[in-house]
């Protein structure tokens, strides 16, 4: 697997996949996509980078422990639910805010925040599993 072609292409591929995963995450509210599938795509990007450059390199590039990323995801998903306390509505109620930026209107919402949480949770969990498996492979 570890050919020159693969090692040269991998960083570009990884960059494209990560950007694409964010795109999938953001379009998710009304169209196919969302945090779960976006997180999976980002995690596969990390797995590819791990195969190409080695797990050590990936851990350095990630800066944070993958499990901590997953924890962060769960935490902000919970936070997204708690925000509705301040509006006297039940837990996890969707709250919306609209920003006018030039001609376009940007919708920000707690479901989006929740979805970002899901994105990080999936990304962190799957990346942790993938890296652990690859580490095993390298050890042999």
């Amino acid at each position, binding site marked *: 697997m570890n050919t020159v072609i693969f090692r040269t292409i991998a960083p570009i591929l990884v960059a494209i996949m990560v950007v694409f995963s964010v795109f999938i995450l953001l379009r998710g509210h*009304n169209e196919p996509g969302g945090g779960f599938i976006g997180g999976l795509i980002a995690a596969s990007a990390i797995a590819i980078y791990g195969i190409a450059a080695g797990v050590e390199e990936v851990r350095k590039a990630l800066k944070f422990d993958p499990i901590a990323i997953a*924890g962060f995801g769960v935490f902000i998903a919970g936070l997204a*639910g708690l925000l509705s306390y301040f509006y006297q*509505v039940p837990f996890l109620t*969707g709250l919306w805010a609209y920003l006018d930026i030039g001609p376009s*209107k940007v919708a920000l919402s707690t479901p989006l925040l929740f979805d970002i949480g899901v994105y990080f949770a999936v990304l962190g969990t799957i990346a942790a599993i993938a890296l652990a498996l690859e580490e095993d492979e390298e050890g042999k």
Partner: protein
Amino acid sequence: MAADKTNIVESSELPVAMIDVATSFADWLIILPTVIALMGAALLIMLRFNKAIQAGLAILIVVGIIILEVRLFLNVMEFGTQSMTMGKWLPPFGISFTVDVISIGFALAGAIVTLAVLIYAQADISSREVKYGFHSLVLLLLAGVTGAFMTGDLFNLYVWFEVMLIASFGLIIMGGRKIQLDGAIKYGFLNFLATTFFLISLGLIYGLFGTLNMADISQVSAQAPIGPLTAIGALLLLAFGMKGAAFPVNAWLPASYHTPHPAVSALFGGLLTKVGAYALLRSLLLIMPSARDFLDPVITFLAIATLILAPLGALAQTNLRRAIGFLLIGGVGSVLVGLGVPTIRGVAGASIYIFHSMLTISALYLMAGLIERIMGTQDTRKMGGLYSASSWLSILFLVLVFAVAGLPPFLGFWPKLLLIEASLSQGDVWLVVALVLNSLLTTIAGTRLWAHIFWRSGPVGENSEQENKKLKPLTLREKYLCVTPTTILVLFIVFFGLKPAMIFDAGRMAAYGLLDNSEYIEVTGLADPTKEKVE
């Protein structure tokens, strides 16, 4: 684009699908304990390399949860069952959390046990295990347990079961010894099987009723065809019986609960099987009582078998924690008795028994940890002479044995009394016989353990008369961190045993809540106005 969409919804004349009453802090109390536990677990796993703050933060979070739950308990006792449906959707479309006395009572007991275990664990686990996220997993387990007790939606209950399963896998293999992996496989396989049966029955329930909201099903289950309903009830009985370790699907418990750290054993013994027992009561009494009526002979048989066989298992054991595992299973039999005699007394007895068992079994496992620490072994044949080393521990252990067996004046006596009264009033003599036999056998098994560990001077064999020189006295740190929480749990058992009035009140309210579904349905917001007119 999203903005346009909301406008359309607002302008058209769709039927009301959202709640438009303001939600107060009192309602938020319903969800906060679960969410705080879950977010606390997430926070601790983010900070897992910061070992110094893990324990303090975890204990702080659990104390916070206990305070919120005490407040919620008082609210529920005063104003009755409370409910909140997530995301402002009307039930049964939104996921409801519906909290009655039984939910909050168990959740509170669970949080107290978790606190005791967290303090105890500070002398029990290594710093490596702290780094692997011990505290985070404990909080995740607490989140799963609290969520399972409080949820008013069957699928959501399944989700909390999964959360518990994930956390308990992590905890049971923590330490990574061979025997733990062996225990984890037995534990994991049977629990996976149980959740799969639960999931299958959820599919059948959705097919039959078109809803998974507990209150909603409870409203219509009486009119459902008895055949499919009984099949579902039997599946649930199997699934939750497996979770709760009732006969004949109890073998996984003594095979796995003695393998992890004693603190983890205590957490599992106090929380996990109780969720199974609670789910049995909730599903077969509140949600589908007609299925329970049909299954009545089966439940009675299972109750008698569990009551008698479990303490016999304990009698045959020479491994201390395995013996406690069998005593725990015997308690599940008592809960099944309550399920078999669904009167106010019977169900109150079962509910109080679960509460009692949460405290007592956890304390027993914590105690077992202390004994193993002093003796350096799990094998009761190699133990002896602890009485002269620590008379305080011997008193605590004896109190716990009597509490498990149901001897007065400890907490275990009152639920057994209620159960015997209920069985007598229903004419189920065999249940009474089984309950009394269970108490007798448990007393024999427990006092046998006590005699072997404390009374006998030395281990089995030639030296049994001589003083045991292998004892390793507890360090001061262990005395503070391990003996104190165990003692506090025992004090709870003694206190509630001597002053049972409050427990009786709560138990009676819990039983009313389970046997009469009208309040549960009403607070969830599903009471059908047309139905009342017909009546």
